[in-house]
Each structure stands twice: as structure tokens, then as C-alpha cells.
């Protein structure tokens, strides 16, 4: 371990491991790290103050630093084997908007059941709103042991401060180990309020959740740096361990024939000013859809940039529970709004399945789809660069390929309408 003249231990780059990603350079608070001509990071010992942030962010463990201080939390836990503590609670917030529950809430109930079983904990659902008791039975039927219901007239419409206060109070009473919420606009708005009230850690937009076997901690995995890096985060000393999870990451659970109980809670709303709803402009068509939230993206490129292609793309998307997105030329042609654009100047996406239709795959586009789990490309140009990153490719005209793809998928997918 290197030391500065002042005796501070400083990290060193292991050149064989360094991939030259430069994340450490952007993170270094004192600009001590530079890129050498051969594309490796180098730490200037004269400048480095040994804070260790470079070691923390390095995706390939190329920074040699004794990180005892930083990771001792994890190590200490590993010293004593984890045993479940009785009476613990895993909880899910059931998001209800306009008299409908968000699907992601039920998906989370399914996942939370798994987590609760690993911890030998009870599973609780939090149902908040006005006239929402009907949702409790659904929560119970999907595997919750108890459903906590908090009804009040002021909760008719979602208001950050009121819901934040009510859910924080419920969490305070029930003392869950884990609290999960959907990463919708409602859930993300609320989670930040609740975590701040409860002074606990919150990990946003997770795509993976698990219980670490030897510590019993919740491991939360999320994409970061525009989807180019996956980070696994934990929250050791604060409870509940809070996480928001993107819709459709986990499957919808099946019915669970267990007993459950309903627990009603009274609540007194805080004195706070409530924003008044002046108008609501419904727009389900094009705006308001966040393509990053969908597990499947059907992406139209220049080669499928025509009004005729859209019914086919929409049908394919519907079949797979996805949504239609596009590359830059399609936005420039005016066929789709900017919000649907994938790419360097659009959105970076990490769907489970990406299907590119007539997308050539310029580097600006490819870089934004790195995080996709699987990629299928359809293009009539056999040399289109998209094929370089596709798990499978079909060389052909979309007008021929898409109808066949749709009919073969229908044969394969059981639960389409």
C-alpha cells in the first residue's frame, strides 16, 4: 500500500485490471487521477488525499486500496452467521390512483413474499386512500399475512405531503425491515418523502432484489451512469430498507390461499397546505409514457419509418407487454415524439428484450442499449451495425418479417388475448 509523504495511505491503479472507463476520474474530488497515453488511469500521489472514492466506484476492482474502513460494515456482519429474527415484517406500499391499483404493487407483493420467506418474516401491505378497502382482499389473496388500511377523506387524491405523512406514520407503527414501492411517478415522488421522514436509506429504480444469505440484508441492484454500470446497494443500520422497483421487473404473482388479517389505522392529517387540482388533461397516447419503464421495447428505425409499420409494431409490443420506441431519424421525421427516442441524444434503456426494426444501429444508438438483456434485430441490410450487438438477427424487409414474427409469437405466448 502506497503512502504519501504525509503518511496518508493512497490507492494505486492495477493497470492490468483498469479498463480506462474514467469513472474514477470524474469522481475524484481533488482531480488527482489522470489518463495515461495507454488508456489507463493513474493516481498522482502528490495530489491524492486518500479518500477512496475511486476504489468505491471502480467497476472492475482495479483500484488497490485497503478498504477496511469502507467495507467493514459488510465484513462485520459476515463474522456472525445470519439467523432470522422472529416477528420481522417485510412490507409493500399498494399504490392506488383513480380507483385503480398499480400492477407494479402486486408484482412487488409477489417478490416481497419470497423475501419474507427467506427472512421467516410476515408480509404486510399498506393500503392508503379514501374508500379503498376493496384492495385489501386482493393484497391478502396474493400472499400478504396482514393488510394495514388507512382511510381518510383527505387522501382521495394523491398529495405528496399527506401521503408521505400517513405512510411514514404507518411504517413507524409497524416497524418493517423492508419497505418496497413501485418506481412510478407516484411511487418515486412518495418514496423520497417517506425516506426523509424516517431518516433511512432509499434505493431508486431497482431492477433486482435479494436477501444476502450471511447478513440477511436486502441487496438492491440498479442501473447507474446512464445504464452503463450496475450497482448493488445495501442499507445496513437504518430501517426500513427502502427501495423503489420499476414496473414489470417481477412477474405478477399467482393466488395464495392463505389466511390474512385486516388491521385498520386511524390517522390525523398534518396541518399543511394542499395543492389544488385545477385541471387534468388526459393523454394516454404518446406523452407520459416512459420507455425506460418497460421490459420490452420495439424500436423503429429509419428502415421502418413509415405510417404503415406502426400497426405492426404496436401489435408486437402489445403481444410482449412492451411499448414502441424509436431511433433519432423517426423523431426527426415527426412520426414519434422525442420522449420515445432511444440513443445518445435520447434515452438510455435497459429493457429485458429489445427488438430493433429497421434500426441500423449507429454507435450513438448502440451505446444506449448496452443494458438490454437480449437483442433481436430485423433489418434488410445484412451489414447493419445493429447485428454486431444482437443475440439474433433476421435479414429481411420488416413488412414481411413482422407479420410472421407476430404469428409465430402468438403460437408461443400462451396468455395473449
Amino acid at each position: 500500500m502506497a503512502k504519501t509523504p504525509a503518511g496518508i495511505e493512497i490507492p494505486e491503479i492495477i493497470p492490468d485490471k483498469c479498463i480506462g472507463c474514467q469513472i474514477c476520474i470524474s469522481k475524484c474530488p481533488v482531480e488527482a487521477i489522470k489518463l495515461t497515453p495507454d488508456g489507463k488511469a493513474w493516481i498522482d500521489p502528490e495530489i491524492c488525499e486518500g479518500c477512496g472514492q475511486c476504489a468505491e466506484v471502480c467497476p472492475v476492482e482495479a483500484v488497490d486500496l485497503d478498504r477496511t474502513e469502507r467495507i467493514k460494515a459488510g465484513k462485520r456482519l459476515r463474522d456472525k452467521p445470519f439467523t432470522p429474527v422472529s416477528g420481522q415484517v417485510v412490507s409493500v406500499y399498494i399504490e392506488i390512483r383513480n380507483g385503480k391499483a398499480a400492477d407494479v404493487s402486486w408484482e412487488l407483493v409477489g417478490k416481497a413474499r419470497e423475501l419474507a420467506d427467506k427472512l421467516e418474516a410476515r408480509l404486510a401491505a399498506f393500503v392508503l386512500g379514501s374508500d379503498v378497502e376493496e384492495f385489501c382482499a386482493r393484497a391478502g389473496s396474493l400472499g400478504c399475512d396482514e393488510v394495514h388500511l388507512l382511510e381518510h377523506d383527505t387522501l382521495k387524491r394523491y398529495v405528496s405531503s399527506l401521503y408521505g405523512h400517513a405512510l411514514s406514520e404507518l411504517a413507524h407503527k409497524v416497524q418493517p425491515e423492508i419497505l418496497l414501492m413501485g418506481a412510478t411517478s407516484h411511487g418515486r415522488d412518495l418514496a423520497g418523502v417517506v425516506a426523509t421522514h424516517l431518516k433511512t436509506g432509499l434505493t431508486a429504480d431497482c431492477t433486482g432484489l435479494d436477501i444476502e444469505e450471511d447478513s440477511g440484508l436486502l441487496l438492491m441492484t440498479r442501473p447507474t451512469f446512464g445504464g452503463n454500470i450496475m450497482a448493488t446497494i445495501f442499507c445496513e443500520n437504518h430501517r426500513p430498507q427502502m427501495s423503489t422497483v420499476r414496473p414489470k421487473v417481477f412477474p405478477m404473482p399467482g393466488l395464495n390461499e392463505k389466511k390474512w388479517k385486516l388491521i385498520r389505522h386511524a390517522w390525523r392529517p398534518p396541518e399543511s397546505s394542499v395543492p389544488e387540482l385545477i385541471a387534468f388533461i388526459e393523454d394516454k397516447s404518446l406523452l407520459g409514457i416512459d420507455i425506460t419503464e418497460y421490459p420490452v421495447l420495439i424500436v423503429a428505425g429509419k428502415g421502418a419509418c413509415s405510417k404503415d409499420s406502426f400497426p405492426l409494431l404496436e401489435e408486437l409490443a402489445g403481444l410482449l407487454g412492451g411499448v414502441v420506441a424509436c431511433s433519432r431519424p423517426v423523431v426527426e421525421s415527426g412520426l414519434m415524439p422525442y420522449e420515445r427516442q432511444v440513443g445518445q441524444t435520447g434515452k438510455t434503456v435497459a429493457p429485458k428484450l429489445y427488438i430493433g426494426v429497421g434500426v441500423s444501429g449507429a454507435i450513438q444508438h448502440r451505446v444506449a442499449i448496452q443494458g438490454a438483456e437480449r437483442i433481436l434485430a430485423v433489418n434488410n441490410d445484412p451489414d447493419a451495425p445493429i447485428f454486431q450487438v444482437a443475440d439474433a438477427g433476421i435479414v429481411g424487409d420488416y413488412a414481411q418479417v413482422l407479420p410472421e414474427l407476430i404469428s409465430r409469437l402468438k403460437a408461443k405466448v400462451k396468455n395473449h388475448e
Partner: protein
Amino acid sequence: MHIVCCLKQVPDTADVKIDPETNTLVREGLESILNPYDLVAVEMAVRLKEKHGGRISALCMGPPQAQSVLRQAMSLGADAGILLSDRAFAGADTLATSYTLAQAVLILNRKTPVNLIICGKQAIDGDTAQTGPGLATRLDYTQLTYVTAVESFDPKNKLIRIKRRIEEGQEILEAELPALLTVELESARPRRASLPELIASMRKDIEVWDKKKIEGDANQLGIKGSPTWVRKMGAPPPRTSGPRFEAAKGLREAVDQSLDIIFADGFMAEELGIPTGVHHGKDSRGN
């Protein structure tokens, strides 16, 4: 009238490139920029100031080099730039960040009462969108997230009317000040500073506030005040290309073979209701 803009300096993730030979990320000279959402927040503040007068304070927590984003905000019309910089602030997660910012806003508020805080919806490096709600909660300001437009602003009667985006469409809300907005990219198209404005901004002073100045509780700052820890980071595995099938040589075969590869190992079988254990190439007729 006093507006505070909260800024973050981020690595320019749009700069990432792929090495065509190895398919790995190259970040040649990855630059630090003002978070694009925060640039929109500054633009919105400047437009409100142009209409209603008053003062804009730009606030940024970060290392010394982050002062460049404050200069940028000042070149666009912010009156003051305050850098929250202290070794004790380093390694902060969103809970510690919102605490540090809230302390600074409370200090600003003593001198000139704050009517409005504008933040970007999220930062492009972390994408959490948590700091805004955290800050609003700590200060007990009206929280208005995903704002796409300010419809009207009436500091005299302490009212603001905004449009915000949710899944089903757009809401128009009227709320009491002080309020905190987090803004979407399309809410205002940022202007470019003129050369004289740029030069003038270089001459302006940036205040640097440390933990003493913000009267911070050491246990709530930086790594110490952050409940979340990063266990590991990893790059998604590099992509390799799979086979290409020519539709001209047999459309059905090309489609079936591709689908077999895509849905191999039970991929998405549960979500889509694809029966597992059955060879995907065969349909009910045994083709």
C-alpha cells in the same frame, strides 16, 4: 422574490462511446457538465426573474471544480453562486445530500426569504430523482415534481400554478409558496450565454460554504450521514453478436430460429406465459 436553484455537476454520460473492436465502453476525456435537467431549472428561474424581478441563488454541493457549473448558471442570469464544499460532505447519498442542501437554504433564507426552489427532475449519473422530494420534506415546502411548465407565478399572494406530468396525462395544480419544483427537460429550452455574459460570470465571486458555515451536524453529513452503501459495481457483460438468418432463404425458419435464441433458457417465460420444457420450434401441430 428569491429563487434557489440546486445544481449538480455530473460526468457527461452522453460522451460514452463503444470501442467497435472490443464492444466495451471508451470514455475518452469524459467531461464534467452541468446536469442537463438542472440547466433547465436555471432557465426557468431566469424567465421568472425576467418577469417578476428578484434574485436567483445557485447552490451546488461538490468538489472545488464544481464551481464551473455555478459560473455557468451565473452567466445565464443567476445572481449568486454558492459552492457547498467540504471533505465532510463527500460520499453523501440522497439523504445526506438533501440535509446539506436544506441547511444551506435555511442560511440563505435568513438573509432573503426564499419563495421557490427549482431542481432538475433527476441527475443523469444517478437518475434517482430523490433529492428534490427529500429537500422539500425537510424544509416543509410544497412539493411539485415532474413539472413541465409554470403557468403562473404570483409571489405577492404566495401562489404558483404549474403543469406536471404523470402516467395518465398532465395535471394543472395551484399551490402555495414556498414550493419546490423538480422540472422535466422540455419545460424550458435553455438559452446560451453571450460572450460578455460569459466574461462577466468569470469575474464574479463564488462563495464556498463549509460544514461550519451551514451549521451542519457531522452525523448527518457525507458518508457518515448516508444510510446506503455500495456493495459492488459491475459493467453489464460485453455484447457479442449472435447468428443472422436470411428471410429470403426461408421466412418461417429465420423467425423460428431467432425466437429460439431469444427465448432460450426460459427467458421471460413466466411473464409471457411461454410453456417451458417444450421445444420452442414446435407448435401445436408439431411443425
